[in-house]
């Protein structure tokens, strides 16, 4: 954190009145910082000359908790990491543990996992689009997105009983098979949703003001993005075709047909387009999952006490925000020896300073929005 006192006064000349740089605090209780992010900005007029993120307001010691409880008991804690897309966090944890065991998961479970993970991606992207558009002043998109997000949350409720912190998956598969009603409603949603994406796009994609506010703002080159180890739509917006669903397929993704959209310029607008297209592709994946859903059990044989062999494993999945991974060390006992989370938001937030320097205050909110952070997994 930079010095707030003194040394900020710049004397221009004896004729001009002295000017001072203004230090402004955004958050943790500011309407546009998502969650409890605090950004300290140093402004020269309205130009940002320095930027510092203060995080940790939501730190709960999740990694340490993981070392003291069993592998099964940790699943609900992962809900609270990326709480916008809880099933994705669940998936990262259960697949990491299953990799440690080397279990074979039934195909039906794989497909349902992919299906639910894509729903969580849609839910997360909808929340992102809603708040991002609201930050730039488009109020109607916010409520339209929430209308569809409500449908996704209702779907989660039908299948798993919870709406936000969906404790969707278990080690070895699922707790129980999803009800038929869930599949019917999913089909209904998948048929309806592409039209709704079109609605959002009529308000934003070709809107002159939206273009002026997002094009050429917060540009990051592909090389810089890789150097900062950004992942997810932020990386793909810069034109790097990297998606873990393709690069290291998990769940049912090897059998599904989808396109990994990439941008060209790496600005806020391209990240917007990438996420919009990802929602379309997610709908495609959902359609395929529903069409191809195999019959059979939804869980493999899981022992009563889960004691993985001693060893270590790293497994990551494509969370809506980027690469979400778990590094696990097992000493052969019932509790992990070490749990390390690789949070996409935390790493992506590291790129914020590079993106906002030289921009205007109004761009800062657009850029924070376009990175799409969730403080739950950023602070852990």
């Amino acid at each position, binding site marked *: 954190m930079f010095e707030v006192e003194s040394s900020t006064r710049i004397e221009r000349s004896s004729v001009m009145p002295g000017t001072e740089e*203004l230090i*402004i605090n955004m958050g943790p209780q*500011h*309407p*546009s910082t998502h969650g409890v992010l605090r950004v300290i900005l140093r402004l020269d007029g*309205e130009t940002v000359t320095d930027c510092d993120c203060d995080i940790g307001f939501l730190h709960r010691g999740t990694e340490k908790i993981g070392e003291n409880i069993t592998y099964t008991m940790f699943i609900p804690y992962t809900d609270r990491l990326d709480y916008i897309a809880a099933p994705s966090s669940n998936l990262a944890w259960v697949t990491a543990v299953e990799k440690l065991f080397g279990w074979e998961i039934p195909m039906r479970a794989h497909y349902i996992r992919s299906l639910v993970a894509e729903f969580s991606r849609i839910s997360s992207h909808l929340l992102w689009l809603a708040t991002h*558009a*609201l*930050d*730039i*002043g*488009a*109020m*109607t998109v*916010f*409520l*339209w997105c929430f*209308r569809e997000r409500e449908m996704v949350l209702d779907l989660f409720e039908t299948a798993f009983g919870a709406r936000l912190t969906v404790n969707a998956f278990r080690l070895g598969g699922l707790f129980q098979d999803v009800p038929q009603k869930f599949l019917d409603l999913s089909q209904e949603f998948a048929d309806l949703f592409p039209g709704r994406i079109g609605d959002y796009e009529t*308000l*934003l994609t070709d*809107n002159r*003001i*939206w273009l*002026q*506010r997002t094009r050429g703002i917060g540009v990051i080159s592909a090389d810089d993005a890789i150097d900062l180890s950004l992942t997810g739509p932020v990386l793909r917006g810069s034109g790097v075709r990297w998606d873990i669903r393709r690069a290291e397929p998990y769940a049912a993704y090897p059998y599904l047909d989808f396109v990994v959209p990439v941008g060209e310029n790496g600005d806020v607008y391209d990240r917007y387009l990438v996420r919009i297209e990802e929602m379309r592709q997610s709908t495609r994946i959902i359609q395929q999952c529903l069409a191809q859903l195999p019959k059979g059990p939804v869980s493999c044989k899981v022992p009563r006490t889960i004691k993985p062999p001693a060893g270590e494993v790293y497994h990551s999945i494509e969370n809506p925000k980027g690469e979400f991974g778990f590094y696990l060390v097992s000493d052969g006992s019932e509790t992990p020896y070490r749990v390390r989370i690789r949070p996409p938001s935390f790493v992506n937030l590291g790129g914020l300073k590079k993106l906002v320097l030289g921009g*205007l*205050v*109004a*761009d*800062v*909110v657009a850029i924070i929005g376009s990175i799409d952070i969730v403080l739950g997994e950023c602070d852990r």
Partner: protein
Amino acid sequence: MEIAAEAVIALVKIAVVLGVVSLVVAYLTYLERKIIAHIQQRLGPMRVGWHGLLQPIADGVKLFLKEDIIPDKADKVVFVIAPIMVLVPAFVEYSVLPFSSTFYITQVNIGIFFILAVSSLGVFGIVMAGWASNSKYSLLGALRSAAQMLSYEIFLGFSLIGPLMLAGSLNMQKIVEAQSDVWFVFYQPLAFVVFFIAALAETNRVPFDLPEAETELVAGFHTEYSGMKFAFFFLAEYANIMVTSSVAVTLFFGGWKGISWIPLPGFVWYALKLGAIIFVFIWLRATLPRYRYDQLMRLGWKFMFPLVMANIFLTGLVKYLFL
């Protein structure tokens, strides 16, 4: 004796206009909430009265009863004066608006000039509010607002020159009379577009609501205000919308003059036209994102300024050659 009678009549008229305008302004907030709600697939206020019809009154009572907070480090005198400085000009402007051929408070031979002059006073209140609050968000919001309103006042004024050249008068009644055959919006479409954009900026409405860009500056210049003082800013904003819409109706849409084969009283025509323009204001708010500060200035000076100048030149040329 006669002077006393005139004074009484004038006072009654002022009371009627003030009362009606205050009520309409209050219900404008209700209308805005309802229209935006329906655009956004929700219901809006529904609880207080039938379909929330008493909501503005409930809001008023709430704001009136709220604790009136003045920040410790604020400049107290200026802090108190600022909301009054914003509200009073907004209401004074109604004194010269012709609501129908017979009903108006007064006729001034420089009516439109009076409105422009008084409306530019409002910006003082905003700057005072921003400065007196002693808060960074307020200060930034006030500075933005001042720069924005000062620049856009220029285009607002210039865009009115075209219609005024056609009318040949600054008197609001005479301007309306001059539109007996054709509304000026058909002669001066360019001027109307510029006027409308400038009016949006002048009243701090979307897409030019930067001074209160809540995502960057919390609530801009009125961040530190609460209770009735906040309500003053709020009312002034809507009163200003009414005034600018009224100016648009008077100068571009023939004021209280209607279509001859539909017999309706003048003030009904006036209200209908006013409502249509205000609806567009609200509709835009539900549709558009917000401009950035520098983009707003660029739009004004590099695009609208040449446009409005060309309009004045063309109007003059046509008038000189053909009329």
